């Protein structure tokens, strides 16, 4: 026989289980606030090299952290926009034809630079696109500078494109919050400047 002392807890659990469908969100990245809102999707091209250092910022971490930061920084704006970052597989580039600004996240080495360039070249088939490039995994500022220069000069020479430098972001540490806030601010500014404002946005109700 069950211990009667457990009965209240059991009833509580059963009650929660019976109403869980009211609370479980099928799309956990975007929480339904109950208020109408607009979802801003920021496409990201991941140029992650095989040798992406374990100590570097990892792609999934960037996606979560930057989306959260963008949502925080724009939370005072009405109607409240909801930001989400979406990784663009190169094979599906044709479905992103309406995006004006694209974030490129690259490993700070030659393979990362090459992957970044390949993505930019492929995605730049649509005119008026702008690219912001963020590196991670450099051991020093000199390596960051060389990666930026190599990518920028190649994009300028072969594609006639001028890239927006977003710098280098290390893995979470003491300065991460400040660096992330600065990055989000710049990304937001570029997105505002270069977004195609009549792009189809998802209305969240």
């Amino acid at each position, binding site marked *: 026989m069950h211990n009667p002392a457990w009965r209240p807890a059991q009833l509580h659990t059963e009650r929660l289980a019976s109403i869980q469908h009211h609370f479980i969100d099928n799309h956990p990245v975007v929480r339904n606030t109950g208020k109408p809102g607009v979802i801003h999707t920021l496409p990201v091209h991941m140029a*992650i090299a*095989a040798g992406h250092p374990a100590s570097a910022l990892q792609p999934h971490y960037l996606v979560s952290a930057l989306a*959260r930061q963008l949502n925080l920084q724009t939370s005072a704006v009405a109607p409240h926009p909801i930001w989400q970052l979406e990784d663009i597989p190169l094979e599906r580039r044709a479905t992103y034809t309406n995006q004006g600004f694209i974030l490129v996240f690259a490993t700070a080495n030659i393979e990362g630079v090459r*992957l970044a360039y*390949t993505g930019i070249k492929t995605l730049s088939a649509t005119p008026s696109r702008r690219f912001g490039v963020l590196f991670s995994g450099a051991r020093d500022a000199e390596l960051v500078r060389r990666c930026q220069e190599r990518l920028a000069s190649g994009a300028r020479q072969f594609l006639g494109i001028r890239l927006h430098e977003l710098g280098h972001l*290390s893995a*979470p540490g*003491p300065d991460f*919050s400040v660096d992330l806030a600065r990055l989000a601010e710049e990304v937001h500014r570029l997105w505002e400047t270069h977004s195609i404002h009549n792009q189809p946005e998802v209305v969240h109700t």
Partner: protein
Amino acid sequence: MTLQIHAVSEIDSSDLRSLVVDNLGALLGTGARLVENMPQMNGCCLATSDTHDGPVLLSFDAVDPQRALITGLTWMDQLSGEMVPLFLQEFHPPTGLVVLAPAAPPGLTLFSGSCPVNWQRIQVLSVNGEFGMLIERAVEETTSVEPTPQESHPTIIESVLSTEEKQHFSQL
């Protein structure tokens, strides 16, 4: 006064936990804090909020990076279930895992392809008999296991880049 400093290879999990809690600001940024009212977790795992109240799970081990990673992944899994928020008021599943260990955990690069996980190097020291923690910003270091290529697109590169472009992007 002479400082007697040496590396510590053995430390109780409770002492290590205290060190991590005392250094949350240095590890995650100013304003980082513990999440209250969490269920009892492994002694080497902490639910925290970073500067912006982002839920981050910390997993740590003074000696064994692999154990820290596996412990962290296990708790990430347990705290990310859909039912969990129903039983924990004001709880948000962690969106990131930070592993604190003296070296990069083997396989971290592979795991990080499917899970938001990062590593930060720590070293526990004894300073005149008191425990202290050296927190180093990790420099470029690969895991002891050869990382598996994640998102390399060699075939795409071959077909997309011209000879001049390949030459331009052959070295930094």
